[in-house]
């Protein structure tokens, strides 16, 4: 029997949602400061309006729903899924006010793409967007990559014992440190250290390539945030192609791979457990899947002779592949080149890479390396069971920080999430085909959206049907949260309608 949610459930959800909205609103202070520093008064005002709206909604929710009770699992999951929708709606306000988005829906699309670290864009005339708005586009990727709730946990929800429920609801099922708030702070430490190093490296390359220092370091910071958080936005409409620099491409590849590494792995490597990188199932699986998918793509590209030189194949073929695999979405080709210059085999390699994703507890989306590794280990275990005598006891282990036995429960959970992703990829592809797009284009774009990648073969455009925009928004949201929070929200609404008192 399904029970109708109580008023108390709604109050608790509203109270925590209000806190997170308040926190999100306060993050808009950063673009305001940058806007004032660059003398961009009007763009700064757009953010002032955004903050006001966020503060009003946040404070009303906190006041109306005030409670001292802690979250339970169901409430935590719902707070997370609603927080991401609220972030999209609020984050889109200053974007829409800039006049660079044709409609509020387009601004919402880009805001969700940013928060979910996807990188698909509908912005118009990006090359003339203000520094303030451009910074906000990249900042929302940084916030979303760490996790909206992580931001709130680190700075605004101190000591809340319901923190763990929200942390898990945001698709981070691994705690790095025993305390979830310390875990959040460690995630920020890693990100800030790399932000400084990455911005310096990219900024220096920009200066050496002739950019003005202030521009070079602004671009460096923006590109770092998009690369480490595997987002894929860039300050210019040509994306990474704008820089025409091998050094820039190599540094961004390194940052993308760093972003695809598990934060727990960062912790172990940074605290002296250096052998972990050689033993961990995720780093081994990532290496194997990158090599396999790149072989497919490179072979496809060689078949049609698109990139005859080895270095060009690396800069065009491998760059898109690793960008897709890590879920970043940076591009060194134009969107239409995927269709005009790549054959289907090459595209299949990239689609598989996008579908696999990076490590769990990283900033990437998609199925993820741990699950792929577990599924292969479970398959190996089953094959051994068939081959070996019936009485033999078959045990399969894998290393992920510690030795773990492959149990049916683990394999089932990995397979279920994998299946959910495959359904999401397929569903988006079918909807794309319903709107008249060819199969391979639809599958490419759908996988890119659901796996939070951001590579585009040209479907994503301001002129695409609104229903397809909504489909991709849903895919980005569900894919980023790894379904559980979304399913819980759906269940909550079903219980509200059909449940018994």
């Amino acid at each position, binding site marked *: 029997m399904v029970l109708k949610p109580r008023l108390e459930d709604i109050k608790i959800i509203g109270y925590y949602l209000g806190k997170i909205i308040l926190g999100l609103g306060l993050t808009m202070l950063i673009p305001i400061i940058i806007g004032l520093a660059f003398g961009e008064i009007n763009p700064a005002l757009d953010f002032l309006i955004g903050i006001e709206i966020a503060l009003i909604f946040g404070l009303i929710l906190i006041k109306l729903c005030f409670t001292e009770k802690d979250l339970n699992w169901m409430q935590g999951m719902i707070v997370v899924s609603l927080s991401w929708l609220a972030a999209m709606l609020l984050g889109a306000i200053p974007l829409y006010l800039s006049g660079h988005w044709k409609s509020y829906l387009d601004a919402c699309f880009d805001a969700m793409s940013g928060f979910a670290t996807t990188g698909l864009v509908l912005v118009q005339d990006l090359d003339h967007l203000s520094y303030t708005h451009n910074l906000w586009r990249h900042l929302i990727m940084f916030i979303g990559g760490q996790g909206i709730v992580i931001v709130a946990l680190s700075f605004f929800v101190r000591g809340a014992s319901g923190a763990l429920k929200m942390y898990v609801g945001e698709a981070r099922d691994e705690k790095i440190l025993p305390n979830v708030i310390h875990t959040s702070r460690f995630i920020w430490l890693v990100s800030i*250290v790399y932000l400084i*190093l990455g911005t310096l490296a990219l900024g220096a390359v920009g200066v050496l390539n002739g950019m003005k220092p202030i521009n070079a370091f602004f671009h460096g910071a923006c590109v770092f945030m998009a690369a480490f958080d595997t987002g894929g936005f860039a300050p210019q409409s040509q994306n990474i192609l704008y820089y025409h620099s091998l050094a820039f491409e*190599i540094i961004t*590849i*390194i940052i993308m*791979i*760093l972003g695809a*590494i598990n934060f727990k792995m*960062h912790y172990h*490597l*940074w*605290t*002296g457990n*250096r052998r972990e*990188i050689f033993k961990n199932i995720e*780093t081994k699986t*990532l*290496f194997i899947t*990158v*090599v396999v998918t*790149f*072989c497919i793509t*490179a*072979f496809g590209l*060689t078949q049609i002779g698109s990139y*005859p*030189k*080895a*270095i060009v*194949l*690396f800069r065009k*073929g*491998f760059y898109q*592949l*690793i960008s897709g695999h890590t879920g970043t979405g940076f591009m060194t080709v134009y969107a239409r080149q995927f269709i005009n210059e790549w054959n289907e085999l090459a595209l299949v390699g990239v689609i598989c890479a996008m579908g696999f994703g990076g490590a769990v507890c990283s900033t990437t989306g998609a199925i993820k390396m741990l699950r792929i590794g577990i599924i292969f280990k479970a398959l190996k275990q089953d094959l051994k069971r068939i081959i070996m005598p019936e009485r033999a006891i078959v045990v399969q282990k894998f290393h992920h920080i510690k030795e773990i036995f492959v149990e049916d429960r683990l394999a089932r959970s990995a397979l279920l999430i994998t299946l959910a992703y495959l359904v999401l990829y397929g569903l988006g592809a079918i909807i794309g085909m319903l709107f008249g797009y060819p199969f391979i284009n639809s599958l490419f774009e759908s996988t890119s959206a659901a796996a939070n990648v951001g590579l585009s073969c040209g479907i994503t455009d301001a002129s695409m049907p609104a229903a397809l925009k909504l489909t991709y928004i849903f895919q980005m949201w569900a894919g980023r949260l790894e379904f559980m929070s979304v399913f819980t929200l759906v269940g909550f609404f079903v219980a509200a309608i059909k449940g018994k008192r």
Partner: protein
Amino acid sequence: MKIKSFLNATLGISIEVLYALFIMLAAFLICLVLYFNK
């Protein structure tokens, strides 16, 4: 103690960067193999 933590973190970062370079090297080797086998 702080120096040891700093050294550990620096070495950790270096290993992570080497891992990324290793993946890139493998990819570039694939490019070379395909280029010479055309």
